[in-house]
Structure formats: structure tokens, C-alpha cells
């Protein structure tokens, strides 16, 4: 093998980039040829130089840039679901600011309906509930119980009117402040009996916004029942 041929293969002599036979031939040539040995030495130095080359440091933000780009690519990879995602995001963005005002508005409307309508239309019967307390803001005065002593001969005998109607005006404590006879006989004896009757009767005063107030009126009418025989 000539020096020229050996020279062509020397670059691979050091790391086995040649067949074993050729390696043996080159090896034999090297032991005889000084210039080829110098060449080989130069390749050895080249190998050192290449091995010593420090790696180039990439820009500090390169890894971050790659990750950001990959996350963008991930979004595009998602395909059709991306459209739905975008639509739902837009929908959310529109509805979310409206959520609190809309709910608040609905609740206010319901509150206004329940309370205002009920106080505007007083006395609508809400059904036949036993022992129901009316929730009206103004409740009229009423009679709770009449005094038990009645009043034989409260009404005049035959030939007179058989009906007596009295309107009583109450104070805040549910006591009778005054009364007047709307219909029926108006005599001193009857007035005395009515005085006694009203004093011992119990009344519920007029309630306004839950507070008893004076000025409520109660109309009581008496009629005589006669049993023959």
C-alpha cells in the first residue's frame, strides 16, 4: 500500500472506520513510514481538538420559547373541540357579568310581587286555612267574646223594634271608648245594659303594621229570639 492510499484511510484508523484487513495493512505501513506516522499524529491531535470543543450555550430563553410554542401548537392540535371551547368561553364571558344583576333583578321582582301586590289588594282570602292570621298590614278591630250576661228584657216587648245595632269605637288597648246606637231603642235603661255588656266584653283592637292602634270600630247587632210554648 502506498503512502497516498494509506493517507486516504488514516482518518479512520483511530476509531475503526475501516475493515480489519485494511487496518492491519495500514498498521504495517505505519511502522515503516515516518511521514504517515506524522499524519496519524495530526489526526490524533484533531481528535483531541474536536473532543475539547466546548458546547455552544443556547440562548437562555430557548427552552421556554420551545415550551410556549408547543403549548400554542397543542391548542391548534385540539381541532373541533377548540371551536366548542371558544364558543363556551365567549358565552361565559357574556353571561358571567350578567349573572348577578339578572338574579338580583328576578329576586327583586319576586319580592315586589309577593309583598306589594298583597298589601295593595287587602283582604284577598288566601284559602280556608284554620286559625289563619291575616298578614294584611292593617287588620280591623273585632270582637273576641261577648259578656255572658244577657240581657233579658234588653229589648222592648211586643210592638217595638226587635233589632238593636250598636257601633263601638275602641282604643289601642281594645277597650270601648265610645259607642253609638245605630238602630233600635235608645233609652236610658238600654244604654245602662249596653254599658255593662260592652265593659265586660273582650275586643281585639285595630292592628296597623303589627301595632294596636286606637279608632277601630266594631258593629254588634242583637236580635231577640222568642221560643213559643
Amino acid at each position, binding site marked *: 500500500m502506498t503512502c497516498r492510499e494509506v493517507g*486516504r*484511510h488514516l*482518518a*479512520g*484508523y*483511530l*476509531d*475503526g*472506520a*475501516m475493515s*480489519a484487513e485494511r*487496518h492491519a495493512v495500514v*498498521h504495517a505501513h*505505519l*511502522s515503516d513510514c515516518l511521514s504517515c*506516522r*506524522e499524519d*496519524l*499524529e*495530526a*489526526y*490524533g*491531535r*484533531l*481528535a*483531541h*481538538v*474536536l*473532543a*475539547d*470543543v*466546548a*458546547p*455552544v*450555550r*443556547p*440562548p437562555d430563553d*430557548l*427552552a421556554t*420559547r*420551545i*415550551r410556549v*410554542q*408547543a*403549548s400554542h*401548537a*397543542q391548542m391548534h*392540535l385540539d381541532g373541533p373541540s377548540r371551536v366548542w371551547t371558544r364558543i363556551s368561553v365567549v358565552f361565559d364571558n357574556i353571561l358571567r357579568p350578567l349573572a348577578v344583576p339578572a338574579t338580583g333583578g328576578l329576586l327583586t321582582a319576586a319580592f315586589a310581587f309577593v309583598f306589594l301586590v298583597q298589601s295593595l289588594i287587602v283582604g284577598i282570602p288566601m284559602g280556608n286555612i284554620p286559625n289563619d292570621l291575616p298578614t294584611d298590614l292593617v287588620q280591623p278591630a273585632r270582637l273576641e267574646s261577648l259578656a255572658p250576661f244577657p240581657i233579658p228584657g234588653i229589648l222592648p216587648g211586643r210592638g217595638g223594634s226587635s233589632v238593636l245595632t250598636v257601633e263601638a269605637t275602641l282604643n289601642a288597648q281594645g277597650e270601648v271608648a265610645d259607642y253609638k246606637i245605630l238602630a233600635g231603642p235608645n233609652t236610658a235603661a238600654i244604654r245602662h245594659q249596653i254599658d255593662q255588656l260592652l265593659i265586660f266584653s273582650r275586643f281585639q283592637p285595630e292592628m296597623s303594621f303589627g301595632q294596636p292602634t286606637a279608632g277601630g270600630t266594631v258593629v254588634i247587632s242583637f236580635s231577640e229570639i222568642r221560643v213559643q210554648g
Partner: protein
Amino acid sequence: MSDLAQTLSWIADETSLVTELQAGSDVAFDWLVTYYHVSVYNVIYGILSDRADAADVTQEVFLKAFRGIHAFRRGSSLKTWLYRIAVRESLNHRRWWHRHCCNEISLDAPLRDEQPAPEIQDSNATPFEQLAARETQQAVHQALAQIPDVYRSAVILRDLEGLSYEETAEVLETSVATVKTRILRGRRALKELLEPVLRVHSAMRPERPSVNQSNSNNAPSHPLGPYGAVLFTGGRGGWQ
């Protein structure tokens, strides 16, 4: 499983990493980027000789890897797969650059030259050694830029990144014999171009044994020759 335990298992077992990547795991991709972006960047920088372009192409490579991980064949090496994309992308970029912008002069070019060389500094080295190492690095990259593309990529993968001939052939999608030929020619061209550097290098390292001494000791009984095991296996690939 915690992230750390997972990461440790990925170092040992590439299959589980590939499974995670194909399942779309962000942690696995982060790990891939952290572990490989420097070596991929260096391969691309060796081919393109431009830092900004190398960074852009590195980004492209990882993006392609991210998109194409589903097509990755189980059993092949993730490293050679990444390098293959890197080499292909670099050559494409170079071709594109020659077609479109080779007559343009970048406004950034003077600024780039003024930047301090950002290579990793060895803290134990003296300033003189650091300067020498930087000059060697520049000279090697300049010489690499002057040799043909096919030789350059083969030499970078084998001698700078430390891949075996088989791996290099897999990356370059060619036969081992072709790779060997390319590397031989590449090294020959580099030796011519780096003659001055090699002379300085030999002067700086007088303690290194010479071929004559080795021969006189009857050392080269190893099939690779006297320095085979030492000299051309010093690739720096995969450091972090």
C-alpha cells in the same frame, strides 16, 4: 407517581418516556426539552454556524417532534430521531436561506459579532486556557462551515456529539459504509483547514505520548490502534 420518580425512570427507560409523550404529557415534553435542547441546538449550530438561526431551527425541531411523536416507532432511539429531524431541518433551512436571503446583509450581524462568546466556561480553567478554548471553538466552527454539508453533518454527529457510526448512519438515513466515507473525507478536510490550530495544540500538549513512543512499546495490538479507544470517543453529547 411523583414527577421526580417519573423523571428518574425516564432516564433509565426511554419506552415509558415515549408512552408519556404520545399520551400528551406536558411533564414528559418538558423533560425532553430540558434534556435534549442543548445538544440539538449544538448540532444545528454546527451545521448553520449562526446562533439566531440555530435557535429558530431548534424551536422548529421540537415543534415537529411534538407534533410527530405519534409517528415515532417504538424501539428506535429518541435521540437519533431528534437528531434526524434536526439535521433535516437544518439542511432545509440552509437551502431555503441560500435561495432567499443569501444576498441580504442582516442588520444584526455586527451586533452578533460584538456579543461575548456564550459558551460554557470551565470555572477551573485559567483565563489563558479559557481564551485558547474559545479560539479553538471558533476555529473549529469556522472550519466546519467551510466543508461540504454532507461531510459536516457526519463529522459533527460522530466527533462532536459522540454518536457511534451506526447511530450516525441512522440519523443521516444512509448506510454505515457511506457514513464512514463521509467522516473520513470530512476529517481530512478539517485537518487541512485546522493545520495552524493543530500545530499550536501539539505545542501546548508536549506531555501527550507520540505515535513513535506507542509503536516502540508494541502497544497497537488493539484493533483500533494506539489511541482509538481514547481519541475519537470523546464526543460531548448529552451533557446537561
